[in-house]
């Protein structure tokens, strides 16, 4: 297979315009004859379904929650980037493009990132027109704030709930299309299989999906002329993450099993400021927004005996004199201080804790201290800026962050890898598209803060409505795809078989028992720092655990009923395969870049060391069957426009 990224001709800044001029379109009468399936209703899925419905296509949209408004985009806190230059501080499309490429450590595709920067301004216009109540200043115009990895203020925000407000905007647009009848909503439905059908020329195309109705447990069939996967990332393979409990990789993984290549799975973003783990029963980790690092200072004690005393409860932060505190980010990165990018801040915290300077009962925490900010600005100002985050911290930990420093530790947050897509967001399976976090395309090896929301909405509002038409233009004579065919029968049977195998297992351990174990392996060996020995060990451990899972898992209840344990078991089965691929990818990429840190490839002062000569490519993997080694395809990254450099946050 040859990977064709289909990047349009012409200078970088004209590629998207050229594409749109030359693409094929579908006339309004023909749009009505075409069906599109959109799986997932987060920012990417909801915006795509709404926009495609508004164009006149027949859209079926699916979500696993009880309402499309609950997709995990809702939890994004900080903001959304856009190159509006409202602040007159030197921002431009070119600047946003460069920051994003550099933030991704030169591992993203130039043309896609440029297009993202290009449409970013339109997103803000669209959201304001929908009634998204962005923060404004006293003139009534839109306000901005700064985020990591940029020297301008280009982040638009709605208090600490930007994701919620953007998603409710997209949900409104989606609801309108549901009311108009162009979009049909299928809530509490989970995609379990992708159906491929040969067209008249013998070419396999994505033509439908099998879903489990989560209320009844019955399997249902849906057909379409194109399928869009917008089901988010795979951070929950680590069990503990900032993702929602039900966020999962299965829809994307099913596509991978059916031939869609999976790219850069080892690029996982670990967010530096999360509330630390506190017990075995814990089910998830809560993020404290990156914006806190504007005013909070991160430190640990300089002396090991002080750290130990804090861990044992004999001392508190207040007992440590100013000169005995190590503000290690300010010490190591004087130019960026506490505002270094996420991957850098996370590794630095781990380094201190591993060296024995960590605080908190487990020793796996560092202080995020607002004492100076409260003295400098006053409590009122701090409260206005971060009130809801402080309240959330207080409720979870029972400690008041106005009085005592927060304790934080890194946690899995976002996954840059995903289904490989070309410039049109089409996977290697014809007719199968992937959008938002589910694809791999725009963030390289590390995503900058406030860019996930931008990408999700760019894909859904402004990219797919164009590129899908280009694909569908020659499908207008195909007619409705029947669902009573051997292809659908077979796909449905495969799902039922899997469910029956799990249910009839009658083992003695719960699904969560195995998920937690898998999470421990991944965090320990495939987490913030990785090396050949650990990764090799992890692979063997994953294999062993997977075997045990299939032999000993206990899934109670019935197949055809509301059965959350069955849902979890089906997802975990896919996580095992994904875990193996993440490990394989991490093992093969013998360089460090962005969120992927191989201890064998670091500079003298412990920073990531890229190997551009050997690894400047996208690693796209092809499924070969259960437990079979996957085949690697490389898409070379050709930087025609940008000057490649080493990321430097020290001076």
């Amino acid at each position, binding site marked *: 297979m040859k990977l064709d990224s289909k990047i349009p001709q012409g200078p970088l800044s004209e590629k998207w315009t050229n594409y749109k001029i030359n693409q094929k379109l579908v006339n309004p009468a023909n749009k009505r004859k075409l069906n599109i399936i959109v799986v997932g209703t987060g920012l990417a899925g909801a915006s795509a379904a709404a*926009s495609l419905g508004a164009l006149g296509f027949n859209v079926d949209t699916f979500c696993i929650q*009880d309402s499309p408004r609950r997709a995990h985009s809702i939890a994004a806190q900080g903001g959304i980037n856009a190159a509006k230059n409202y602040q007159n501080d030197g921002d431009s499309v070119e600047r946003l493009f460069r920051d994003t490429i550099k933030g991704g450590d030169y591992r993203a595709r130039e043309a896609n990132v440029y297009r993202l920067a290009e449409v970013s301004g339109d997103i803000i216009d669209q959201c304001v027109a929908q*009634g998204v109540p962005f923060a404004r200043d006293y003139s*009534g115009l839109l306000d901005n704030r700064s985020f990591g990895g940029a020297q301008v203020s280009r982040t638009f925000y709605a208090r600490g709930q930007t994701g*919620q407000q953007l998603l409710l905007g997209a949900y409104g647009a989606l609801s309108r299309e549901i009311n108009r009848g162009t979009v049909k909503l299928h809530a509490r439905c989970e995609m379990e299989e992708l159906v491929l059908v040969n067209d008249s020329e013998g070419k396999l195309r994505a033509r439908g999906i099998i879903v489990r109705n989560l209320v009844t447990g019955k399997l249902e069939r849906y057909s379409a002329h194109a399928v869009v996967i917008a089901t988010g990332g795979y951070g929950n393979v680590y069990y503990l993450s900032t993702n929602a409990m039900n966020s999962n990789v299965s829809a994307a993984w099913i596509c991978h099993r059916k031939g869609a290549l999976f790219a850069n799975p080892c690029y996982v973003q670990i967010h530096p400021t999360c509330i630390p783990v506190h017990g075995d029963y814990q089910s998830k980790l809560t993020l404290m927004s990156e914006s806190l690092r504007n005013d909070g200072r991160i430190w640990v004690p300089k002396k090991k005996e002080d750290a130990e005393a804090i861990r044992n409860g004999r001392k508190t932060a207040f007992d440590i004199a100013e000169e005995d505190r190590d503000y290690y980010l300010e010490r190591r990165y004087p130019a960026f201080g506490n505002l270094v990018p996420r991957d850098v801040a996370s590794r630095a915290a781990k380094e201190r804790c591993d060296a024995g300077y960590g605080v908190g009962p487990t020793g796996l925490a560092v202080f995020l201290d607002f004492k100076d900010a409260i003295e400098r600005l006053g409590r009122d100002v701090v409260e206005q800026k971060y009130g809801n985050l402080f*309240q959330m911290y207080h409720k979870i930990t029972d400690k008041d962050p106005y009085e005592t420093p927060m304790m934080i530790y890194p946690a899995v947050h976002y996954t840059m890898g995903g289904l490989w897509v070309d410039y049109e967001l089409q996977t290697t399976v014809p007719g199968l598209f992937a959008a938002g976090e589910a694809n791999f395309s725009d963030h390289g090896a590390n995503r900058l803060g406030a860019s996930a929301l931008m990408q999700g909405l760019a894909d859904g509002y402004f990219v797919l409505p164009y590129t899908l038409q280009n694909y569908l233009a020659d499908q207008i004579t195909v007619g409705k795809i029947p669902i009573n065919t051997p292809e659908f029968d077979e796909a449905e049977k495969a799902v039922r078989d899997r469910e029956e195998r799990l249910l009839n297992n009658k083992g003695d351990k719960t699904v969560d028992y195995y998920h937690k174990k898998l999470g421990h392996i991944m965090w320990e060996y495939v987490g913030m720092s990785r090396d050949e020995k650990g990764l090799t060990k992890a692979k063997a451990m994953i294999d062993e655990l997977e075997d045990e899972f299939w032999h000993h898992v206990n899934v109670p209840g019935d197949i055809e009923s509301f059965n959350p344990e069955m849902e979890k078991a089906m997802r975990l089965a896919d996580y095992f395969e994904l875990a193996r691929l993440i490990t394989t990818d991490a093992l093969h990429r013998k360089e460090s870049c962005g969120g992927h840190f191989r201890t064998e490839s670091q500079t003298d002062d412990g920073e990531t060391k890229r190997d551009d000569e050997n690894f400047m490519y996208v690693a796209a993997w092809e499924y070969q069957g259960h437990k079979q080694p996957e085949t690697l395809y490389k898409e070379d990254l050709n930087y025609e426009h940008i000057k490649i450099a080493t990321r430097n946050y020290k001076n």
Partner: protein
Amino acid sequence: MNFTLHIWRQENATAKGRFETYKVENISPDCSFLEMLDILNEQLTNDHIAHPVCFDNDCREGICGMCGLYINGRPHGNDDGVTTCQLHMRKFDDGDEIWIEPWRAKAFPVICDLVVDRSAFDKIIQAGGYISVTTGGVPDANSIPVPKRMADMAMDAAECIGCGACVAACKNASAMLFVGAKVAHLALLPQGQIESQERVQKMICKMDELGFGGCSNTYACEAECPKQIKRQNIAKLNRQWIGSIFGGNHKG
């Protein structure tokens, strides 16, 4: 900590429900309420006592609105300004008996145990709880300034997470706070004013049709709202509605 739990069990929408009693022991006070239920489910499954208790949950950080349990007679339990997922066991006393029920409202039928069908909220929004704008062709975001005060008030109302606690708290199972929050959010913004009269009519008609009751004027909804949405939004809803009948260009 040890607790005795009385949990509503109901196999499906048509089955008859009942309370079952279970005990959980050695629960950490730092455990969240839903994590305590996770522990119970692990126990029920491992000891083959019963099927795990079904309850909706997702983000577990208080923003998705998926979770919602009626705990000792209060939606989201005995802490203020939190959802069920943010409620922690330290808010209870060791040895407490805890009664756990689903939302009870005609418009929210039970699906299984503690899980209810809240699609009625989606239907109210679909009836008109949006600004009718299609993708593209909109003016520049800064072309219409919005006074900061109005934008802030719109945001206060827009913080609603659609969990349904307001309906569960109300003795009439009224959705006035939910509808009021959306109507107020959009009517406060210039972009939303164009359709405000039609919007309020459509949403109220749909709300009535789906079996939600009228406002009980007790403001239990405001008291129990995890996002502390203000009852003033109900007043705004009423003003918008009256305006749409008497003062408007729309014949309601």
